[in-house]
C-alpha cells in the first residue's frame, strides 16, 4: 500500500479568537488530522511575513494564519493589517515558486470550534493533493 503524504502545517493563531476557537474544538472533541503545529501570538497583526517565509524554509508544506473575524479584533484593527499584509505576501509567493494555496488566511471566533476543525481538515486535504513543498533549507 502506498503511504499517503502527510503535509506539515504551521498555524499562527491570535490568542483571543482563533486560538480560543482551537481550544473550543478540543472541548467539543471536534476531530481533525494531526498535521498542524500551532504558534500563538497575541494578535494576527503581529504576524510578520518573515514568519511565514521561515516556516516554508523550515519544511512547512502550508501555513495557516487565523484571527478574529473582521470587527471582532481585540485590538480594534490588528486583523485588518494582518489581512493586508498576508494578502500582499501571498501574491509574492508565486515569485518563489510557491503555490498560493499553501498560505491560508481564516477568521475563526472563540466559539467556532467545529469551524476550526473543518478549516484544518480541508487545508490538510488540499495540501495532500498538492504534495510536498520540499523547501527545507539546511542551516
Amino acid at each position, binding site marked *: 500500500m502506498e503511504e499517503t503524504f502527510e503535509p*506539515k502545517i*504551521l498555524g499562527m493563531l491570535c*490568542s*483571543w*479568537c482563533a*486560538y*480560543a476557537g*482551537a*481550544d*473550543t*474544538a*478540543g*472541548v*467539543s*472533541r*471536534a*476531530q*481533525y*488530522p*494531526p498535521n498542524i*503545529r*500551532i*504558534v*500563538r*501570538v*497575541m*494578535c494576527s*497583526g*503581529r*504576524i*510578520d*511575513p*518573515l*514568519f511565514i517565509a*521561515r*516556516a516554508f524554509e*523550515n*519544511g*512547512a508544506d502550508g501555513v495557516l494564519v487565523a484571527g*478574529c*473575524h473582521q*470587527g*471582532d479584533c*481585540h*485590538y*480594534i*484593527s*490588528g486583523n485588518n*493589517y*494582518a489581512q493586508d*499584509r498576508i494578502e500582499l505576501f501571498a501574491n509574492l509567493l508565486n515569485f518563489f515558486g510557491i503555490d498560493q494555496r499553501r498560505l491560508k488566511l481564516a477568521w475563526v*471566533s*472563540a*466559539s*467556532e*470550534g*467545529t*469551524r476550526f*476543525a473543518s478549516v484544518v481538515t480541508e487545508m490538510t486535504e488540499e495540501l495532500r493533493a498538492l504534495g510536498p513543498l520540499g523547501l*527545507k533549507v539546511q542551516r
Partner: protein
Amino acid sequence: MSMETRAYDSLVIGAGISGMQAALDLADKGYRVLVVERQASVGGTMVKLDKTFPTNDCAICIAAPKMVELARHPNITLLTSARVERVTGSVGSFEVAIWRQTTYIDPEKCKGCGDCARVCPVEVDDEFNAGLSKRKAVYLQFPQAVPAIYTIDYANCVGCGACDRICDVGAVSFLKRSQALMVNVGSIIVATGFEVLEPTELRKEYGYGRFANVLTALQYERVIAASGPTDGKIARPSDGETPARVAWVQCVGSRSLKGGYPYCSKICCMYATKEAMITLEHAPGAQATIFYMDLRAYGKDFQQYYRRAADHGVRYVRGRPASVEENSDKSLTITYEDTLSGEVQHEQFDMLVLSTAVVPAPDNRRLAKALGVEVDEYGFFVSHNDLLAPLQSTREGIFLAGGSQGPNDIPDSVAQASGAAGMAAIPISMRKRAAEAAPLAERDVSEDESRAGVFVCGCGKNIAGYLDVPAVADYARGLPNVVLSETCTFACSEDTQRRIRASVEEHGLNRVVVAACSPITHGPVFQQTIAEVGLNPGLFEMANIRNQCSWVHSTGNAPATAKAEDLVRMAVARADKLQALPAQTVEVTPICLVIGGGVAGMTAAVTMADMGIETFLVERESVLGGKLNTLATLAPSDTPASEVREQLVRAVQQRPRIKVFLSAEVREIDGYVGNFRVTLDEGVGGAVTQIQVGAMIVATGYREADLRGRYGYGDDPRVITQLELERRLRDGTLGTPRSIVMVNCAGSMNEENPACCRIGCTISVKNARMLQRAAPGASIYMLYQDMRVYGKGQEEYFTKMVAEVQPFRIRYDGGRPPEVRARGRGLTVKVYDTLLREDLAIEADLVVLTAALQGDAQTPRLKQMLKVSTDELNFYSEAHAKIRPLDFTTNGVYLCGADHYPRTIPDTIAQAAGAASRAAIPLLRGRVTVEPIVAEVDEAACSGCGDCIPHCPYGAMTLDETRKVLNIAEVLCKGCGTCIAACPSGALQQRGFSDGQVLAMIEAAWTI
C-alpha cells in the same frame, strides 16, 4: 449552629454581563466583591447569543475574557448555584443570608474533563440550548463555562453512581451538602437580568409549542450559534433541512394591552435584524422576512445596521401577522396584511421565529422580598426615581443594573453596570481598599544558561488516554537545556504546584514548561506558582497537548504522541529564548477632570466626589446645566427642567471636592493616563490655568443640526425646532396655534444622514402632551417614519399620550420627506401617508421640526487634543460598542452623555455614573499597571520613518522630531504587536513575542 459571618465590601447578585461588569469595576477599585449567581456558570444570556448587534461581533469572544477575569480576580469571590435568602441591616452594613446549593461535585477537585458526562445514562433537555438538544444529568453548561466544573442536576440524576466510579480525582460526592452562609456587605447590586416569554399561554395564534418549526428568538440564537446544537448550521427542527424561507414576527406579547405586556421589549427589532442577516449569510439563497409594526432601530448605528440588512436582502413587511397554520410538510402559512399595500396575504415559510416579550427573571419577586425592595407589576425591579435616580432601588444602598430593570441591550446594560458600581462604591468609600499585591522578590536569571524543567500532564485520562505521556516526558528529557522532565496526573492540582516549586529550587530551574491544556485558561495558575519561588512569570511556557492534541486526535495513539512531542519541543525552544517581563507601574495623580457641565458632566462630577475623588468641572458657558437651561419639562415625569437643573447644580455646589470653572475651555492637553497636564483658558480677561489630572471624562453634549433651507426652516418664523418649542413652552410665548404639525426625523433617517436620533420620538410624544396643554383644542399632527418609543416606560408614555391627546399620526417614508410651504396666511405641509396611501395637505400655523442631532461644534478640536475619534456626526467613538461603551481607546479618558450619542436624561445619568466608575479605577488605585507584553524600539535601528505610527490603534507611538526616533508610551501600548510587523527596519520588538521567540518555535516545529 453558629455561623461565621464573612465580610465583603459589596455584593453583586447575578453574573450576566451586567453583574460581571459591575463586580469587575468594583474589584478593580480595590473593593472586595462577592458575586452570587443562581446558575452553575456565569455569563447569563449573552453567552447564549451568536453574534451581537450592531457590530456583529461574536458574543462569546467578548464575554469569555470577562468571565475568566471575573473568576481569577483576587478581589472577587464567586458563588455559583447560590441564592440570596434574606437581607437585614442597612446601607454600609447589610447582613446577607445566602444559600449555596450543592452540585455534588467538589469544585476544588473537578478538572472539567467530562468523563462523568460520557458515562451518565440520563439524558434531559439542555436548557442552555433552549431545549433544542440533550445533555446528561451531570453536565457542563457550555464549553466555555466558568467555573469549568461539572454539575450534577440532582432532580434528574438516577443515582447510578457511574460518574463517581469513573471520576479519576474523586470529585463526585453525593454526601456534599448545601451550605448556608452569612456575609456582611456595605452595598448591593442587583443584576438578575431577564428572560423571554414562551408564548404557550398567550398569543397561541402563532403556534408556538404546537408546530415544530416555530421557535422563540432565543432558541433561534442557539440554532445559528457556532457553538449551538447544530454547530451553526441552520436547520429546521422538524427535519434538519436548511430552510429556504424564514420569517420573524415582532412584538409577540410586547406592546400589547391585551394578550401580553404593554411595554416595548427594546431589543427584539435589532436582534431579529441580526438573526435575519446571519441567516442570509449561513444559508445563501434563503429568504428572510421580518413582520413589524415600528422598526425600532434607535441606537447608535442601529438604523445603519437596519438599512444594511435591507440592502442585503432582508425583507421587512409592515404588518402584524394574524395567525399561523402548519402545512402537511411542516412548513407554515402565515396570514398577514401588508399595511403599506392594504393586501391580506397567505404566505408560506419553512421556519418562523417569534420575537417574544422580555419578561423578568423568574426569581425576582422572591428576591425583591428578601432584599426589601420593590418590583413593578410584572416583576422588574423599580428605581427610586425614574428620571433622576435610575439605578437606585427603593432601598438605600441597593442598586440596579441591566435587564433586572427591564429590557436592555448589552451596551446599555454594561453602562448601567458601571453606573451601579460607581453608586455602590459610594457607601463604602471610607473603607480601606485591598492593597495591590506587593511584587514578589525575583531572581535575576538574565545572565544564566537556561535550565528548563518540563512537566507533562496526563489530565487523568484526558491526555494519558490518547497519547503516551511517559514517552513524551522521556522525549523532553533529551531536549537541549532540559534538566528535568516529569509526568503528573493533574498538573493544576495543588500537590503538583508544590512539586513544581520544589523542583525549581532543587534543580535551579530558570524556565518552566508545562505540557497540559490551554495557556489561556491555565497559564496564569503556573505563572503564579513560579513567581512564588522567585521566577518571573515571563519565564513560563505551556504546550497545549490536551485541547489542541489529545482531545482532537483521539483515534490512534501514535500520531497524537508524535504531535505532543513536537509541541513540547517547540515550547522548550521558545522557553530557551524567554526573558523576564518587567512589571511596571505608573503613579497616578488622583484627580479627575470633567469637560462639560450638562446633566452628564454634573452627574459624573458628583459621583466622583462622592467616591472621594477631587474633581475639576469645566463648562464653556457661564452657567451649568447644558440643555436643561433650554428645556421646559422632562419626560417621563413632566418635572420642570429648571427644578432638575437646580437640584443638580446644588449637588455640585455642595461638594467641596468639586472645583467648577465656568466660561472656561480646554486649550491644551499633554501627557497620558495618570498624568495629564491640561491648560484651561477662562475666556476673555480670564486666567489661563494649568492643572494636572489622572483621568478625564468628556461630557460635551450635542446640538441640533442646522436645518436652514429645508422644511421652510429659517424662511418662516412659524417653522421651529423642538428645542425652540421647548424654549417657547418654558417662556410661555407659544401663542395660540390651532393646527400644529410635528415633523420627526427632520434631517435624519435619509440618504444624507442615515442615523436615527434615538430621542426624537420621545421628545415629540412629550411635546404633543405639552402642546395640548398649552394650546387646548389645537389639532396636532405627528409625522413620523417609525415611532421609536422603545423600551419599558416610553411605549406606555406614548400610549397614554395617544389616548389623551389623540393626535393624527402620519407615517411617511424617508424617501419622500414632507414639504412645508407658506400659503396665504398659513403654512401647508404636504406629505404622503403610507398607511392611508394618500397625499395629505395639512393646513398648519406652527411646524415643529424634530431636528437631527449631532455632537458639539467644538468636538473636532477637542478630539485632536484628547487623541480620540468621532463618527461623521461628531459623536465620540467608544473603545468597544458592546463591552467598553464608556471608555475611549486612549487610556484614562472616558465619555458619557449625549456626546456619545443622544440619549434621555435617565440614560445619561446612568452613563455618567458609569464613566465616573470607570475613571475612578486608576484614580483610586493610585497607579496603573503597564501591560508587560509591550512593544520596544531599538533606537539605533530606528530610521524615524514613522511607518509604524498609524498601525497602533491606541496612539501609543509618537515620533521624537528632534532625535528622529520613535517614542513608545508604554502605558498606552496594549501589546498587540501590530506595529512590529510594520517596521521596515526591524527596529521594533514585542516583549514576550519577539521575533527570536516566535521564530524559535517555527524552526523547532519539525525535526526533519
